[in-house]
């Protein structure tokens, strides 16, 4: 159960006692919320631990989010630094670790997140000596790191980065430069104001030859007084849609010299005489990005989506509007089919993506073990999957959160609902760590390659063997209940994904055979290629959901509701993309009507468990920080009480004395 907020807001108000409209929803749950929570957490012990952590953090006033919605950019930044520093202290006191759950619980409010990427990139890309030198300094916060890759002129397309690092053999140093304005580093977090050091990605030149992108550790601010080092221009890039607490920065380098030992050299090294040595795959430099993409799916995307669902669904059983039956009380808006159709598919997607993130983590762990053994075979698949799923999950979830926001009517637009900040935050994930369209195309490149290999009988990774599988030409479903069979819909997705990949590959081949140059042919097919990659990821997500449900046989209560959600996720996908399933007649027009009927029936079924299904995510009120989504459902009271805390109601605005009063009294000087 979520920890209830009591005391602070409850003097003389209803806050704390549960709104009967919400209480009634919890009495009819078809399953045990506590059991579902434990299962999602991976066991009751994990749940207990997570709750203890959250409680420890939320009891600490330094971590309070109470004024978050009222603070300026400067105040948010200062609070983030304060909290990050305080967390360090707590970690020492409590014995928390860098990878512990405390970070997760707080990450939305902390400075120095890039410091962790800095550290991680050194452990992954640095030599043993480099690790021995830098990691203790970083963990002791003797320096604060950032990770500077993106430039003003280039983002996802890494080869286009323009910063240079020229090896000077006489002094055994690299000379780093920003050759023109578009080469300025732009966006790296923690770099605008906080960082003293940063990993800079630059084009390496030795003896006039370019060796491509390499990482260098560069000090940018004094460790004494924090002033900028010579040759460094750095600052904050200004306000954004969100992340106001983070000082995303710019960085210009003018003849900045770093010792030879500052190039991270686990996989590549420049020797004292200028010889360039490479060990292992060059792709390994991008491995940090693969790691980040996979971990961001859960932390930055799925969790925010779960929060948005929690807020919107709880609010939708408290909000009553209009009448469904004459003479009765106004109906809960969640009882309207259109409202169910907005929210319940997003809830199903939150579960689907929670499971796919598990799947990816397993795939990644396996790949990582191989890489440790210097076996890079899994890299292409890992890279393709992390790209495609990052793109699909972020794109889908972003629109899902926006749907949740708009499903809350006017109150959704109040920052106090918590939804605008969830949206503006999640929406950034479509761009950072790789722009989604480019990522889909990277996945597509892998899929086309696998398809070609598979069709000539060569071995392909198990996840894509379906590309060569023979499936029936027509969907065998006879009535609407058949579409509640995972085999039926999984096969439909498989057929659709294989068809799109197959037909795009054929078109590419046709174009090339008709004399079009390869790159032109590729550009002419990119819209289709992106669609094919998305279809592949959608298929794997459905398949993985169905398999997850199957493994739940020991917990029948949970299995039943998860099966409903899986069905809903799958059928919603067919319903919303009817054209691609109808296109070659795999699903007929009559079958599509069955899909629609089953889909709409499911909405009414899941409606009954909607609130328990979001309760199971187990967010505390303080974590949600939403006037609409609190556990007790005292929506209106809370909105009213929170609004009164707004600075606009406390501080005296000079506007009245200065402008309104003269206007009202016609004393405004006549220009």
């Amino acid at each position, binding site marked *: 159960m979520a920890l209830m907020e009591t005391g602070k807001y409850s003097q003389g108000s209803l806050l704390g006692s549960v709104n009967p409209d919400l209480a009634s929803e919890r009495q009819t749950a078809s399953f045990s919320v506590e059991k579902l929570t434990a299962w999602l957490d991976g066991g009751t012990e994990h749940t207990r631990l997570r709750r203890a952590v959250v409680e420890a953090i939320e009891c600490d006033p330094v971590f309070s989010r109470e004024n978050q919605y009222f603070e300026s950019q400067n105040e948010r930044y200062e609070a983030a630094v304060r909290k990050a520093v305080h967390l360090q202290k707590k970690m020492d006191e409590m014995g928390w670790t860098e990878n512990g759950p405390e970070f997760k619980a707080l990450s939305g409010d902390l400075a120095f997140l890039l410091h962790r990427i800095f550290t991680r990139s050194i452990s992954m890309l640095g030599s043993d000596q480099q690790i021995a030198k830098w990691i203790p300094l970083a963990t002791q916060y003797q320096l604060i790191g950032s990770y500077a890759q993106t430039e003003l002129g280039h983002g*996802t397309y890494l080869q286009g980065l323009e910063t240079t690092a020229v090896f000077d053999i006489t002094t055994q140093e690299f000379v780093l430069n920003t050759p023109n304005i578009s080469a300025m580093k732009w966006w790296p977090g923690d770099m605008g104001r906080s960082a003293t050091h940063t990993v800079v990605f630059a084009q390496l030149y030795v003896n006039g030859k370019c060796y491509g992108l390499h990482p260098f550790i560069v000090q940018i601010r004094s460790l004494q007084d924090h002033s900028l080092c010579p040759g460094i221009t750095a600052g904050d890039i200004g306000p954004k849609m969100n992340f106001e607490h983070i000082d995303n920065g710019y960085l210009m380098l003018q003849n900045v010299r770093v010792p030879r030992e500052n190039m991270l050299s686990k996989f590549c090294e420049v020797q004292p005489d200028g010889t360039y040595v490479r060990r292992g795959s060059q792709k390994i430099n991008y491995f940090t990005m693969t790691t980040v993409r996979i971990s961001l799916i859960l932390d930055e995307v799925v969790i925010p989506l779960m929060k948005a669902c929690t807020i919107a669904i709880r609010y939708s059983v408290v909000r009553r509007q209009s009448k469904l039956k004459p003479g009765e009380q106004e109906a809960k808006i969640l009882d309207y089919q259109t409202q169910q159709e907005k929210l319940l598919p997003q809830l199903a997607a939150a579960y689907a993506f929670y499971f796919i993130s598990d799947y990816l983590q397993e795939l990644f762990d396996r790949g990582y073990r191989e890489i440790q053994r210097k076996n890079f075979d899994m890299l292409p698949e890992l890279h393709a999957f992390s790209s495609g799923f990052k793109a699909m999950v972020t794109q889908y979830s972003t629109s899902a959160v926006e749907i949740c*926001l708009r499903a809350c009517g006017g109150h959704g637009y109040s920052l106090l609902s918590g939804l605008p900040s969830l949206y503006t935050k999640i929406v950034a994930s479509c761009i950072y760590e790789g722009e989604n369209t480019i990522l889909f195309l990277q996945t597509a490149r892998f899929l086309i390659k696998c398809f070609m290999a598979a069709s000539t009988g060569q071995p392909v990774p198990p996840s894509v063997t379906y590309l060569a599988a023979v499936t029936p030409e027509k969907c065998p479903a006879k009535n609407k209940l058949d579409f509640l069979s995972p085999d039926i819909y999984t096969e439909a997705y498989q057929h659709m994904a294989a068809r799109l990949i197959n037909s795009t590959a054929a078109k590419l081949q046709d174009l090339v055979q008709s004399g079009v140059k390869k790159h032109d042919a590729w550009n002419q097919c990119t*819209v289709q290629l992106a669609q094919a990659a998305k279809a592949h990821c959608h298929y794997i997500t459905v398949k993985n959901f169905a398999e997850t449900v199957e493994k739940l046989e020991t917990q029948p209560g949970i299995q039943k509701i998860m099966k409903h959600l899986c069905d809903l996720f799958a059928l919603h996908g067919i319903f919303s993309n009817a054209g691609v399933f109808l296109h070659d007649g795999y699903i007929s027009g009559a079958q599509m009507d069955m899909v629609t009927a089953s889909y709409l029936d499911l909405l009414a079924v899941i409606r009954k468990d909607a609130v328990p299904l979001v309760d199971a995510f187990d967010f505390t009120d303080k974590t949600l920080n939403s006037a609409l989504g609190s556990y007790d459902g005292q929506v209106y009271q809370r*909105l009213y009480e929170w*609004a009164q805390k707004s600075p606009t109601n406390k501080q005296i*605005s000079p506007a009245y004395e200065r402008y*309104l*009063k003269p206007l009202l009294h016609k004393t405004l000087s006549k220009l």
Partner: protein
Amino acid sequence: PPRALVINDPDFQHEDLNFLSRSQRYEQAIRKSSLMVLKLREYGITDPDEIYWFKSFVHRGRPEPLDLHLGMFLPTLLTQATPEQQDRFFMPAWNLEIIGTYAQTEMGHGTHLRGLETTATYDPATQEFILNSPTVTSIKWWPGGLGKTSNHAIVLAQLYTQGQCKGLHAFIVPIRQLGTHEPLPGITVGDIGPKFGYDEMDNGYLKMDNFRIPRENMLMKYAQVEPDGTYVKPLSDKLTYGTMVFIRSLIVGDSARSLSRACTIAIRYSAVRHQSELKPGEPEPQILDYQTQQYKLFPLLATAYAFHFVGAYIKDTYHRISGDIHEGDLSELPELHALTAGLKAFTSWTANAGIEECRMACGGHGYSRCSGIPDIYVTFTPSCTYEGENTVMMLQTARFLVKSYTQVSSGQQVTGMVSYLNDLSRQRIQPQHVAARSVAVRINDPVSLVEAYKARAARLVEAAAKNLQAELNHRKSKEDAWNRTSVDLVRASEAHCHYVIVKLFTAKLAEISNAAVRAVLTELCLLYALYGISKNTGDFLQAGILTDAQITQVNQRVKELLAIIRPNAVALVDSFDFHDVHLGSVLGRYDGNVYENMFEWAKKSPLNKTEVHESFHKHLKPMQSKL
């Protein structure tokens, strides 16, 4: 005055709003509004359209605290006040001694007006109305300008007289003391706190406790309460449709404008940004040369043009029939009302998604406030909710469509935009008709595509109506059946609106006399229609309107059109003629000098005010010394 004069007027200059706090933004807006009012008088501007343009240059298309005073309070006085009331209130309001707002929405109810709970109880003994907010949910919530700016409000409340509820009526309520601007006794008023955008607007709350106003403060041009409490009914309740149609038509126009602004920024930036490679060995191409980028932006450009024409059509139609309305002929009003509701929803949903698509097409820099798109988005997105929540709007249109369908089924003919429903009965006699139709669609002919959209709308309206009937046959109450069909009904409305837009766009082409302009707009019209098909292939396939092979052709043709439009893309957004100041975007500058100006802009960020941020001394340094 010419636009440059307003835009360059030193009185209207200020620091970039992105760097200001909410209170500071509110203050700047109030400052500019006050000056604006004086200058309007000075220039002698009274025409509503001219005032609108003046305002939009002064405030650069942003909301401002006097919006409700100018846009709702004054017009409502004009249309609903008696001559005596106009004498009392209009001139003081015109002269800004009275600043008013329009308080309708409550915390607990928005679009569903009948659910509003504020009460106005008539007391014949004192000839006063007693206003009350009986519950938390009845607190007025959201009205613009209510929080801090206004001293009066037109309050909508349930009227009680002689012990009976007479429904919603409008009352002029003073809320702040003239002179001190302090809230009056019995009035609790304030700002509702920070929102997603609208930083310069003091959206407010208002709670009334036994607050008394004279009988003469009820707006009584139509309904009246006589001194003894006798209630006199208004003549027609359809009249209120007129205002709603008008405001919703403004939103359709706003959808076009907001989407046009976002397209201008994204397309200009895409011509400036170079990235990756298309051909090995060649310089990095403009990102606008990538098919995926064109596929994101050009259909939106076409949509912006389409909505522009739709907005103009509704406005014209409204003006055409408002004469009839004045003379008591309300026959065309229901259809226009139903159509406007749906189009308001359709265009605001589409534009809302389109603005975000434009922003994301600008990559990371779109996310910076310097791109201007976050601001366009947060300013526009509430229009999906205000003036009628979009889903509810779609269902209103659906109600009209089902009614028309029922009329046709019972043998009557219908007229106007729904007249295609008349064909349905004929089709049923010829089962082969639908199949025969598919080959008839010519994908390069806008007129033929209008027919395809018409067929889709007819099919979805029919399907929804039949499903509704089936639900009704199954024991269900009318309301239940309606609710269980509402997803189908929304789809039907969307298809109907989509058809209307394609039809209006196509009709517009014939009016363009310049051949080159007509040619490029024909390409945009085709793109709009074909892209819509490719995004909704399921509907066209399932109804047998198009074949698999035709869908493949449609998809192919869309991509060809992208390449055809590419050379004109920048010219097509330049034609929207947004001034740089109005656009408010570093990425969308007319001169395309993006990177230099981003750097200049960033230097002004509040975090950069000092070389070393105070947090270093306060937090970082002490921590480092302890570890």
